[in-house]
């Protein structure tokens, strides 16, 4: 039971990362290589904002911190879109991917410059929610992770299914040119995609940071997120959720049952296996491969 909850909690972090990668990919066919960096920078900002609003992290200051991080990250996503990505519309998508690599370097350097590479931990929700007889326990943050992830995916599903903007989003993802001719505001759609992606990355980073220490090396979780997105299929949101849980289960079980060193290798081993066996992922569309 404890194992199950831990996997779900870690899986929800990966699923949130994968969701951001998938949304950006769906909207613009760009693979965001800066996702791990965005997540960790977001978590650092959350940590610092928590200090500014009150180190004790009581309920009101926690709410303010969450609000600052949520709004700040969404605005940062919009900023990335309008300052960088919009200029690359119409250029080959791998150029945009290389720009995200450049962005990743700058963000990682930002951690070095602003936070002097310090290791920090976000001390929220570490208290046990439920203790097992065998010594295991479930913490508050595990529960919050899982619930936040479910809520976000449900909200996304509803958005794409029932709102006008969501339908426009799907149309723009399918064929941007036709959508633009039908008066869909492509810039709005893409800015929204980036805003959501950075927001969900920040959420994932904060959840990650509340479970283990943050450092510039933590940006490697971007690889897990990318793997989760590929396992599920780069253009499938449903796949992102399932891929996240699968990658988390594989990583966690390897660390528990075989060796922690091998667990570091699990994300890219899965990545290689997926690329050999089923590169379009579990739920992705096959013809996607030829479009990029």
């Amino acid at each position, binding site marked *: 039971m404890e194992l199950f909850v831990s996997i779900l909690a870690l899986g929800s972090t990966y699923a949130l990362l994968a969701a951001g990668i998938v949304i950006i990919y769906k909207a613009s066919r760009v693979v965001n290589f800066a996702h791990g960096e965005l997540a960790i920078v977001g978590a650092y900002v959350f940590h610092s904002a928590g200090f500014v609003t009150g180190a004790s992290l009581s309920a009101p200051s926690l709410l303010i911190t969450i609000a600052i991080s949520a709004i700040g990250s969404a605005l940062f996503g919009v900023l990335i879109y309008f300052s960088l990505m919009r200029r690359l519309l119409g250029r080959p998508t791998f150029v945009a991917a290389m720009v995200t690599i450049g962005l990743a370097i700058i963000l990682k*350097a930002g951690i070095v410059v602003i936070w002097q590479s310090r290791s920090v931990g976000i001390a929220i929700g570490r208290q046990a929610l439920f203790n097992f007889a065998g010594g295991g326990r479930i913490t508050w943050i595990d529960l919050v992770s899982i619930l936040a992830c479910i809520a976000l995916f449900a909200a996304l599903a509803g958005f794409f299914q029932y709102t006008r903007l969501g339908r426009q989003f799907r149309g723009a993802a399918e064929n941007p040119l036709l959508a633009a001719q039908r008066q869909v505001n492509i810039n709005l759609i893409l800015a929204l995609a980036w805003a959501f992606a950075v927001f969900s990355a920040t959420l994932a980073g904060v959840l990650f940071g509340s479970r283990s220490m943050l450092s510039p090396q933590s940006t490697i979780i971007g690889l897990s997120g990318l793997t989760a997105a590929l396992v599920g299929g780069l253009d499938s949101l449903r796949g992102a959720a399932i891929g996240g849980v699968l990658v988390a289960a594989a990583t966690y079980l390897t660390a528990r049952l075989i060796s922690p060193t091998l667990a570091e290798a699990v994300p890219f081993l899965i990545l290689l296996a997926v690329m050999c066996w089923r590169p379009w992922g579990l739920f992705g569309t096959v013809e996607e491969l030829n479009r990029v």
Partner: protein
Amino acid sequence: MTTNSPYLHVSYAETNRVLVEPYQRIVVAAIVAAIVCLPFVAGGYFLHLMNLCSIAVIGAVGINLLTGYCGQLSLGQASFLAIGAFTTAILSQRFGVPFFLAIPASCCAGAVVGFVVGLPALRFRGIYLAITTLAMHYAIIYVLTNYQAIVGPSASAGISVPAPSLGGFTLNSERGWFYVLLIVAALVVMFALNLSRTYIGRAWVAIRDRDIAAETCGINVPRYKLLAFTISAALAALAGSLGAYFTTVVTVEEYTLELAIVYLAMIIVGGMGSVIGSVLGAVFITLLPFGVGRVFEAFPWQLGTTAFGVQQAAIGVAIIGFLLFEPDGLIEIYRRIATYFERWPFRYRELRAGGSR
């Protein structure tokens, strides 16, 4: 019959010349003379930087053949360098193999690994290929990390490499290294320039521009893609091997994903699909952190980690800046300036055929 004109070609050989006009030979001769005389006027620190540049040029030319000419985006360049460096370290330190055998062996090891990493290119292109090479990079580095932990005195100490020596002469001075690395780099540049003018180079460009059309033209696309990966990895391994001898110690921590990105940055900044561009980019990106460091030293207060972070960020800014504002890189800036002076006082665009050097 030759016309010595950059515009009127009367034979196929003329369209393929590297130095089109007579004055360019004089310019190249002057540059060579200046570089050869450099060690007599420059200090040790400057020569050290130049040596780093020469090693970077070898690796950058390698990745430019793969990414710039053949259009295969690779994030695995650092792992090829690591393969070269580790092969050299293992052969020379554990088995006492002399450098003239260790370096070719390293190139061969790199070529084999490049062939394997290139296999997915037969199935994917673009971003999917980049993701696959990314996974390959982590796999190779993971193996080398565990190897280093087993053989080394400790997990992070690395493997030391003896200085190369031949017949009583040991190569350990900056000035000696300067000439050796310069000659190797010049040979690599000439090799790449010549390769790009042959059937192989033209096949690569055709695959980059449209692989389906290239296949229709009778180019064996899988073979030339794999050839690009093999040659590129061999050159990267050569750079890694020389780097191992030059720094005298090999640690796996050196070969991060950032290093692969730095090499990618070199060809983005220098110019994709241009051998001379990769030379310019390699020098630019290698010197950039030192230049930024110099600027920071001018500040009165100590910055420590901050300066290091800004040095890193400068590379990211260079990548984004060039991709957004000058996608063809430094070589395109050079071409524009050269054309401006050639045409002055008129403002025609470049008329020259060929152009992708």
